[in-house]
Each structure stands twice: as structure tokens, then as C-alpha cells.
């Protein structure tokens, strides 16, 4: 941990603090015991709250790295399928509503800002703004899901949900059609399989994130996260921002293929 990011823990006695200064991630020194009053959130196997929070956030980063590969499998499927059927993907992408997707991107980026400000409020021990920003983040997350559901409904009305109901009958197909109509329709349907799987998995992450923030909002009431112990808020923030980053890539890959022509 770099020296400038050291979060000083006033509840902790100075001697104890010296023992761990600058080596937060290293094993604790043997002389570090339990003398003096310390923060109620400090678990006994950590030297300082700062070391504890560093470990907690590192654990979250490890989880997020595995999440990246969870989504990564789908991004790989996307890459292969788009490489194989570029015309069908460009055609299919043109059936998404661009302005709704753009609006949703802005909503999600805004929720990342409010989440970052919630973490900041927790660090600066301002309970009112912490709870305010958590509420804002939850509301923006719900708005995102609402817009997403609206888009799903529009796809449903146009028979673009993959499966037995899928049909391109009412749509004008590109003129020199690569392969036959049947083949082309199957490839467009493949795009929509990928579209619904990826955005669906993303939406599931949003729902979980909203749930986590809801729990933290309730737990934060008594000031639990505004006395120097901000790790739970920070960790939830890391998760929220990660889900935002997944969308940052989904948006151009799913919505922005069509305009400039194929591939």
C-alpha cells in the first residue's frame, strides 16, 4: 500500500500503528497485540483497521477478476459469432433502439458517480450524504433496469426473442443476402441469443448490486460505516463499478455495430 493512501485510524493507539505502517498487506508483526481501545469493527486477526480494509478490498478484487472471466466466456462467444456472421450481426444490432441504449449508458455512469460519492461520504464520515447517495444509486439502478425491460418488451413485440416465436417476417432483409433467408435468420437469432444472455446476466448483476446497496443502506443507519470503517461500502462500490465497466463494453459491442456498415 502506498504511503499517500494510508487511512489513519484515530481509534487505534499510535505504537500499534507504527508496527504496521507501510506494510499493510504483510503478515502482522508478533509484538502487535490488543493493547488499548480499538475500533469495534476491527477483527482480532488484523493489526489495524487500515490493514483490515486493505485485505477486504483485495478480496473483492480477486472476486472481480473471476467475474471478469465469467463474463469473458460470453465475450469470447460474441467475438467468434460476430467474426463468423458479420452481416447478420450488423443487421441485428440495427434493431436495437440506439437512444434507449445511450440513455441507459448515461444512467449507469451517473449511478457510478453517486456510488463513488457514497464511498467518499463513508470515508469522510458523513452519514446523511452516505445514505442519500446510496438511495440515489439504487434509484438509478432501478431506472436502468426499467429502461432495459422496456427494450426487452419492444424486442418481444417485434418477435426478436429467440426461440419458436422468433421471426424476421416483418423486417426488410439486406439486399444481397449472405446465404439463404433461413441461414441469415438463424444467424440473426444467434445474435439475439447472445444479446439476451449478456444483457440478462448484466441485469442479474444489477439486481444483486441493488440488493446489496439496500442492505447497506439499512445497516448504515446507526452510523456503522461512518466512523472510519468504510470497507463494506467501498467493496459494494467496487462491485457496482465493475458492473458498470461490463456495460461500457456491452454498449458499443451490441448497439453500435450497424451504422458504419458491416464488421
Amino acid at each position, binding site marked *: 500500500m502506498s504511503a499517500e493512501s494510508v487511512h489513519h485510524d484515530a481509534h487505534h493507539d499510535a505504537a500499534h500503528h507504527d508496527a504496521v505502517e507501510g506494510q499493510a498487506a504483510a503478515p502482522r508483526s508478533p509484538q502487535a497485540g490488543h493493547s488499548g481501545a480499538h475500533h469495534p469493527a476491527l477483527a482480532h486477526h488484523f493489526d489495524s483497521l487500515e490493514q483490515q480494509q486493505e485485505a477486504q478490498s483485495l478480496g473483492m478484487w480477486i472476486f472481480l477478476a473471476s467475474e471478469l472471466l465469467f463474463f469473458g466466456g460470453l465475450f469470447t462467444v460474441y467475438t467468434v459469432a460476430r467474426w463468423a456472421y458479420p452481416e447478420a450481426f450488423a443487421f441485428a444490432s440495427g434493431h436495437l433502439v440506439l437512444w434507449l441504449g445511450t440513455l441507459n449508458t448515461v444512467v449507469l455512469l451517473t449511478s457510478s458517480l453517486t456510488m463513488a460519492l457514497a464511498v467518499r461520504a463513508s470515508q469522510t*464520515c458523513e452519514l446523511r450524504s452516505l445514505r442519500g447517495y446510496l438511495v440515489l444509486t439504487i434509484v438509478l439502478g432501478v431506472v436502468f433496469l426499467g429502461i432495459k425491460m422496456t427494450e426487452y418488451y419492444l424486442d418481444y413485440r417485434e418477435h426478436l426473442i429467440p426461440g419458436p416465436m422468433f421471426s424476421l417476417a416483418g423486417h426488410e432483409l439486406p439486399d444481397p443476402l449472405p446465404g439463404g433467408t433461413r441461414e441469415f435468420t438463424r444467424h440473426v437469432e444467434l445474435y439475439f441469443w447472445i444479446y439476451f444472455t449478456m444483457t440478462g446476466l448484466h441485469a442479474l448483476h444489477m439486481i444483486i448490486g441493488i440488493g446489496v446497496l439496500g442492505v447497506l443502506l439499512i445497516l448504515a443507519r446507526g452510523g456503522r460505516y461512518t466512523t472510519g470503517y468504510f470497507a463494506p461500502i467501498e467493496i459494494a462500490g467496487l462491485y457496482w463499478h465493475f458492473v458498470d465497466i461490463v456495460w461500457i463494453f456491452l454498449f458499443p459491442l451490441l448497439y453500435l455495430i450497424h451504422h*458504419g456498415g458491416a464488421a
Partner: protein
Amino acid sequence: MIAHATPVKTYCLIFGGLLLLTGLTVAASLAPLGGLHTLVALAIASAKAALVLLYFMHLADSSRLTWVVALSGLLWLAILIILTMSDYLTREWWRVTDG
């Protein structure tokens, strides 16, 4: 107790940058860029992701250990996609020599 909390202004600037890049990627998708569309879109998305990682997720002042974890995630993702595509992209080469 306040440690070094990032100033609100920094967060707002990053947010402004993210909005700007979102506008840019939509504009670029409408522009006649020929075959460069995907490359431009991915470059802009990567820039946005970097802003979120460095500032919103505080990677800019995180420990080197955190960097190792974050970069290892990217490394394995790269292995996944590059190895897969190195298969698909080279299949045609064999078909040609097979006659």
C-alpha cells in the same frame, strides 16, 4: 479520521470525461470510418473503463498487490480470447493447403 478522500471535483471531472467519451463513441459509430469502427469503439470503451478503474475504483492509489490481481484478470481474459480466435482465424489456412 478523514483520510485521503478523493475531492468531489475529481469525481465530477471523471464523470464528465465518461459522458464525453460516450457521446464520442456514438458519434464515431455514425461516422464513415470504414473498417475502423470496431477498433475505435473498443479503444473508447477501454479509455472509459480505465477512468472507472483508476479513479472510481481507486486503482490509481491502490497497492501493487491490487494491481497484480486486476491485471491478472485481464491477462486471463486475453488468453481466453486470443487462443480461441487463433484457432478460428487460422482454420482457413489449412483448408487452402488441403486443396
